[in-house]
């Protein structure tokens, strides 16, 4: 039975792999997709007597990320050991940061119903990734696990938000904003499928107006934006149903079952690890020179927030469009280059969000792989403006361009698609149409304004759609009223 109206409270823990050339504590390559156990050395395999040496580039990337997330950058921080046994964790502890993270107190702004909303970031800390287990066949039936340590020691930034989100949609927006921010900062590929962006969600619900937070559960195994939304919706519903039935919500860790679209219990609070954190004695505390931070700040590229403000202020684009256009630096660059040659931002935005996205999604492609260069799209739009082609034709030509990479004028020429805007040519056709449809002409003259539409249609038909419709309208009007 429904007892209350509930408020959903969500916080996200996001792991971002930093795209340094080498791992965080050794010189092994940091690259995805290599043959198992080829990017491995005694250090990242946890051999006896080995010691970590911190990768300066990983620290620099963490600072860049922290600045992009509006965080304070610590001038003094340290590393700690997080202890647990697992076959993919070679040292049986993960070098992480416990009480003194490199970045703290940041935020990201998202748009909720057209209103800006600020999501707080508690902290972002550096740590090393673990390896992974590989199973031949079904995990439940195979006799053994294989360990691949290529990922062991890849630098990670764990970004912990405040419990500031109030719906699955907000959580998704935050994660999208976080992703675009990391992409713009140039610190990560943020590919959820490859695991370079990973997300856990903490979910609780409380009756409206209640100040205390409800009991939270943590959801793991969220491998896509869609999974994040679905899992939060499912989990929040589950909490509400339990509360409505006067049942207790267990504080536990749950996993998202993509197939069944449900969350399932992984381990209870009692089974939770005691990680026995303590300061990593093999690494001295990390002292960060504020001058270094300053120089990194000065070299920061434009970030989504700045870009979004620019697009709204200069072009008057709505927040919805702006969020999509600034989703990746490549996407924004495409937009900017296109607008530079065809200065009608809203039209460009519409085409990018419409046709371009449609075909990119169909082909599961990245904009970098798109055969239509921004200048070519600008060229196409110009042809619409100067009447060489109609909007309808432009869409067909776009499809051609997307497939072949050819310029719009080339396609128009090759296919003889140019719009007929020559008045003499059109007049000849119009006269033919008027002569063969005397009844319609009479209807029009008798006051049936709509009859003109039929006549325009006939002209379009006669020209296989190539006639400039606006001009045809104009000319028919002129003919009929003149006689």
């Amino acid at each position, binding site marked *: 039975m429904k007892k209350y109206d509930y408020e959903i409270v969500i916080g996200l823990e996001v792991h971002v792999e930093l795209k340094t050339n080498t791992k965080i504590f050794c010189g092994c390559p940091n690259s995805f997709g290599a043959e198992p156990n080829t990017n491995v050395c*005694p250090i990242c*395999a*946890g*051999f*006896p*007597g*080995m*010691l*970590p*040496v*911190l990768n300066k580039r990983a620290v620099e990337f963490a600072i860049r990320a922290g600045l992009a997330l509006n965080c304070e950058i610590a001038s003094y921080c340290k590393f700690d*050991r997080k*202890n647990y*046994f697992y*076959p993919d964790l*070679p*040292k*049986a*502890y993960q070098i992480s940061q416990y009480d003194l993270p490199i970045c703290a107190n940041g935020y990201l702004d998202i748009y909720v119903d057209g209103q800006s909303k600020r999501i707080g970031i508690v902290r972002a800390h550096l740590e090393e990734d673990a390896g992974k287990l590989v199973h031949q066949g079904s995990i439940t039936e195979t006799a053994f*696990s294989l*360990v691949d340590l290529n990922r062991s020691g890849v630098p990670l930034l764990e970004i912990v938000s405040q419990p500031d989100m109030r719906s699955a949609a907000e959580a998704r927006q935050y994660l999208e904003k976080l992703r675009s921010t990391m992409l713009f900062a140039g610190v990560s590929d943020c590919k959820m499928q490859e695991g370079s962006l990973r997300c856990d969600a903490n979910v609780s619900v409380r009756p409206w107006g209640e100040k205390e937070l409800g009991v939270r559960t943590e959801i793991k195994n969220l491998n896509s934006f869609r999974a994040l939304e679905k899992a939060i919706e499912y989990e929040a519903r589950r909490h509400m149903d339990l509360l409505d039935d006067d049942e207790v919500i267990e504080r536990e860790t749950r996993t998202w079952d993509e197939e069944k679209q449900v969350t399932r219990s992984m381990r209870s609070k009692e089974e939770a690890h*005691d990680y*026995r*954190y*303590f300061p990593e*004695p*093999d*690494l*001295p505390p990390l002292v960060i020179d504020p001058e270094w931070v300053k120089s990194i700040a000065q070299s920061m590229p434009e970030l989504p927030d700045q870009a979004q403000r620019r697009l709204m202020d200069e072009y008057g684009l709505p927040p919805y469009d702006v969020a999509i256009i600034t989703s990746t630096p490549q996407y924004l660059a495409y937009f900017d280059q296109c607008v530079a040659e065809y200065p009608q931002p809203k039209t460009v935005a519409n085409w990018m969000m419409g046709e371009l996205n449609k075909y990119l999604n169909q082909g599961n492609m990245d904009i970098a792989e798109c055969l239509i260069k921004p200048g070519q799209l600008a060229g196409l739009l110009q042809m619409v403006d100067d009447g060489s082609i109609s909007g309808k034709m432009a869409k067909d030509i776009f499809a051609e361009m997307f497939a072949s990479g050819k310029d719009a004028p080339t396609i128009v020429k090759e296919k003889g698609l140019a719009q007929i805007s020559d008045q003499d040519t059109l007049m000849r056709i119009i006269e033919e149409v008027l002569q063969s449809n005397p009844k319609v002409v009479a209807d029009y003259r008798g006051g049936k304004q709509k009859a003109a539409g039929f006549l325009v249609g006939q002209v379009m038909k006669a020209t296989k759609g190539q006639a400039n419709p606006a001009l045809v309208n104009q000319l028919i009007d002129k003919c009929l009223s003149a006689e």
Partner: protein
Amino acid sequence: MQLCDLTIHQLKSLLEKKEATAEEILDSCLVRIQAVEPKVRAFITVLEDSAREIARAIDKQGNYQGLAGIPYGLKDVFCTRGVKTTCASRMLENFVPNYDATAVSRLIEAGAVMVGKLNMDEFAMGSSTEHSAFFPTHNPWDYNRVPGGSSGGSAAAVAAGEIPFSLGSDTGGSVRQPAAYCGVVGIKPTYGRISRWGVIAYASSLDQVGVLTRDVADCALVLKTISGYDPLDSTSINIEVPNYPDSLQDDIRGLKIAYPREYFQQGVDEQVKAAVMQALKTYESLGAVVDEVSLPHSEYALPAYYLVANAEASANLAKYDGVRYGLRDFSAENVVDMFSQSRAQGFGPEVKRRIMLGTYALSAGYYEAYYLKALKVRRLLKNDFDQVFENFDVIAAPTTPTVAFKIGEQVGDPLTLYMNDILTVPVNMAGLPGMSIPCGFADGMPIGLQLIGKPFAESTIIKAAYAFEQATSFHLAKPALGVK
């Protein structure tokens, strides 16, 4: 006197004058090893063939600079490329690294000839070498007694004339205590002076490589060879290493030596006390200024040490899980059983005890009361030393409360065994350089004088040690060995 009984500097001079070859020196050591090993049992691995190869190559080259042609042994905690590195544990009984520890690389570069790997307490946990998973080592001065530990094999082999020098590791006294028990010179330099890269960790914030030799001059030479910054060890310090042999001067007039009253209190044997007091008189006669001081937090050093060391050890030894190397129980039905059964079989009782104590000390709800408190004590201990060093150059004290005890005497009593470290652990907790040199005998067993210096002031304690050695002859005494 045979070649194997000589010091490094004596051997170097023979080599340079072409009065001996590296191979002859090696042969002499190997003969001694063969003769005494059934009684001493210092070696886990002897590398006769590869040692002979290196010695011959050096003789062929005829360049005897550095440590070229000088045989040595390594505590089996040092990783050696292509050579079994066991840590005296069943866990690593068949472990062969494909890398050399930095300290070992530096000895190889200096031309020293590695003769073998030496016995120790398993994973450097112990004070008697009785906790070796393989066999105990015996004190060359009395085979019924322990050589100390955990670098017991390293000390015994040098004392028995099997090798002129060895490397050990010192986490709470593991070089100085066996040096004292076996009547040799042992130094543990400042934390950060020698790279720990490739040294299998016990307690990372306390572990430091140490050197065991027959006299102070040898100690200075070997220390100089292996010291210095290593980019592979982030805790090694990037400062210049003085040429320690330059500190071998016997003029110590005006040197200010403090002796802490807490190091002469209950539990310290009267004969040990007397020998150290006599040593202080010797210093006075050499023109040093000697005065009593207090290190008031000393009594808390031992419990704090065992919390810090075991906490770090519980993490350092977690990697021995049977997954990638080392002992694995193949009969396990699942991964958790594989972890626990491999570890149950691979570790000895003392290692298990320390892992459990350390795990407990770090556990939620106990961290503040134990580990954090121990870190605070550590800071207080450091402050005590800093204060004394405002007015003094060197702190002198006994290295151990007693001379070497009988094998089996303390093995069932861990707390008593831990007391052996009471005078050495504060030095590790404060990260200071410490040294033990022979200063007398009690019941026929050697007594060690401990000299403690300011951070990175190894030169000062070497100078003080050398002056004492020049004025006395304790370092010249040799065990009878009782073999031909």
